[in-house]
């Protein structure tokens, strides 16, 4: 059974999440991909504020297909998280608490995730049509000039995801593979 989880995440919720848990996320989250990550980290390096308060928030690594008339968004599944790895530790240090993407993270990201008591979740890649059904609102909030890579704020209801890296050092990719390897 999937756990219902409210966004933004609280410390208590994060403490309850274990690698391998299925969750249904509801609330607000932010969408950012490589180009937006790069710009956010560059802003931080210059001592400038981020375009939104990232403390306690969750980022979804995603680049949707265009929204057809009458829908908030098009197909909206996760993209490969690796491309964000070089920027992620800096954002975790700023207070980022949740990340949703797909695929393994670097050791640096895993260490930083644990250290800052954050959590990494995966959504099913290639299930963009299904996932889009749980997105009820999508707004561009920053970096509009990046086009499809602008930062979005989403309102979601029961967005399905699976916990990959928890605060206890659990790693579903590593544990799952070991369990079924022959």
């Amino acid at each position: 059974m999937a756990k219902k989880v409210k966004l933004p995440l609280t410390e208590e919720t994060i403490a309850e999440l274990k690698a391998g848990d299925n969750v249904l996320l509801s609330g607000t989250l932010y969408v950012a991909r490589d180009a937006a990550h790069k710009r956010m980290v560059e802003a931080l390096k210059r001592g400038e504020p981020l375009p939104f308060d990232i403390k306690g928030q969750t980022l979804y690594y995603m680049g949707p297909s265009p929204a057809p008339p009458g829908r908030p968004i098009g197909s909206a599944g996760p993209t490969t998280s690796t491309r964000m790895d070089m920027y992620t530790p800096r954002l975790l240090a700023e207070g980022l608490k949740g990340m949703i993407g797909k695929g393994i993270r670097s050791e640096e990201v895993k260490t930083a995730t644990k250290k800052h008591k954050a959590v990494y979740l995966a959504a099913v890649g290639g299930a963009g049509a299904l996932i889009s059904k749980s997105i009820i609102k999508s707004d561009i909030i920053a970096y509009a000039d990046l086009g499809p890579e602008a930062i979005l704020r989403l309102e979601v209801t029961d967005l399905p995801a699976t916990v990959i890296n928890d605060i206890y050092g659990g790693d579903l990719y590593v544990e799952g593979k070991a369990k079924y390897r022959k």
Partner: protein
Amino acid sequence: MREIKAGAVTGAISNLFNQANYELGEDVLTALKKARQEEESPLGQEVIDTILKNADIASNERIPLCQDCGVAVVFLELGQDAHIVDGDLYTAVNEGVRQAYDEGYLRKSMVARPFSERINTGDNTPAVIHTDIVPGDRLKITVLPKGGGAENMARLGMLLPSAGRRGVVEFVVNAVDEAWSKPCPPVIIGVGIGGTAEKAASLAKHALLRKVGEPSPDSEIADLEREILEKVNNLGIGPMGYGGRITALSVHAESFPTHITSLPVAVNLQCHSARHREIVL
């Protein structure tokens, strides 16, 4: 000489990319349902259920199967007695791609100047076009919108001939193991063996067009495909890498004679969102 209008090519390409991006083929659906029966891991079973449900939603509600609507890969088999009129063939193909991605609400993912500015071309062109000249007066068009996540896990190895069959199996299995969760497993594994570096790579891509689960007509290759599939499915990666039995749905290999000093092997992974469609004009 039979005439085929360029406009007919454009229309066909546009339809095929639309169909491919909204409807998963019967062969893929059948393979996924079989995989659902065989998968032992509860999380893996749920992933396959999600993929099947996604396919339903995509076709019933007209939402693309995946937000990554791919690079527009197009295979053309042009009969030598066919004559394209009222325009040139590749312009017609690219116009079809433009129409499909623009009017079909598909994501445009192509960027020009790949190692510097990476500017989106705005209409998902140019297509990557492979053309074969064949006997006859028909034009067979196959489209394969290819997602980046899986394409990025492609590998080419120039093995020593002494590596032989074992070397080939090892190379492919390692490629899948290293790709791990990234290419959105369960995958279909395209393998090209022989020829030259670029020939092997193109065979591996072409092999993905075969119906999922259909073995090679060459019994030696079919045997190799079975062995690779068994080994890959013992890796434990499982659906989406959450751990499980089904890492690949199928292995498709193609082979070509090669140089006495060479044994090229290419691997091209296709994610479970295995979208391809064909038509003969």
